């Protein structure tokens, strides 16, 4: 299943690149491509069953002091 997701993503990335050449030539390509590459990298890691850290485990320690402060202010 993960391989299907990766292959579909890759196919859509190629399609998007062709579309850009045809239709969106005057629009930036770098950011959508970067998003595709991040998405494909994550999908590939999922195919390989590599350990992917949960978004919460990255975000929440960074925000924990802020969250605690806001919680104490509000409640």
């Amino acid at each position, binding site marked *: 299943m993960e391989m299907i997701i990766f292959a579909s993503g890759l196919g859509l990335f190629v399609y998007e690149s062709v579309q850009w050449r045809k239709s*969106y030539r005057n629009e930036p390509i770098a950011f959508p491509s970067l998003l595709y590459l991040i*998405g494909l990298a994550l999908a590939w890691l999922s195919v390989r069953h590599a350990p992917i850290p949960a978004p919460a485990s990255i975000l929440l320690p960074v925000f924990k002091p802020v969250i605690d402060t806001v919680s104490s202010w509000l409640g």
Partner: protein
Amino acid sequence: MFYLGSAMLSLTGLLAEDSGQDAWLSVLFALLVHVLTIPLYIALGKQIKEPSLGDYLTRLLGSIGGRSLAAVYVLMFPFFIYTLGMFDLTQFINTLVLPRTPTSATILLFTIVIVAGCYNGIKTIGRTSELLFPFLIGLIIIIAASLSPDIEWKHLLPVMDHGFSPIVNASLPFIGHPYWEMSIFLFIVPYLKDRNKLGAILLHSAWISGAVFFVSMTITLLALGPRLSSHLIYPAYFVTRTISIGEFYERFEEIFTFAWYIMIYYRLSILLFVTVEGLSYAFSIPSKQRLLIPLALIGITLSKYAAPNVIVQLNGVHDLPFGYSGLFGVLLPAILLIIGKIKNRPA
């Protein structure tokens, strides 16, 4: 629909765990706090005269400041909630509905529908929700009425046995998730035909969602009791399984599941739509739809790994929303409002 999406299923048990038979009072308290914060959003909505929130942020914070804030906000708040919401959905489906289906397949199929909705735009999402909402309310009324033979009023007694403090504590996660997630709608304000109606829209959505939460919570408590409700992961779902009249009027859990799929679909669609809106502004992408598929692709994998298991996710839903949503849903809009007031002040 946005409010009802995720919280209706996952928060019922947590509320019952924290405040027992008084969980229905926690719902009312959370609704009251939510109504008190609505003026903040109305005031901010009135400040937004620009055709998009991005233009408003540029006026307030300058191009770089506005774009940076929009990018950080949408990735940290709506997109983060999107991955957690999708995780919530897949856990529910894989635990109770389709246990042998791979998680990735569930996520992929749901993502395709969400991307299709977002591709058609917020107007299409809004119109279809208008069409389906009365139908869903009808289903909830039928479920509530069907549970009435199982009601035992003694399950709500004694009222406020441990005082007011557990009621307030139990309501905190509920205030954060979903009510203080309302700041996400600031990205949709520019799409309103008449922006003066924002206050009425927010108030109507508050009381309607509050009424549904209240009915759902109270009927679960009345039918199952606080003890059993607090021990179940999805008591609002479980209670519908108990409906059985004459051994043919039953299997209402499938109707509940169907209603919940529709509600969470709108929640996830709005979250993804707002993420696309914010990022397209932040990185100057005129054709917003181009960001939908790559973001959905990232979302598919991140949703799968959003939490190690459903218990960790429920603990997160319990501990985090108040502070996290308080930061992005109340503090940030309040700061924007103050900056806007200072900038608009006549010299």
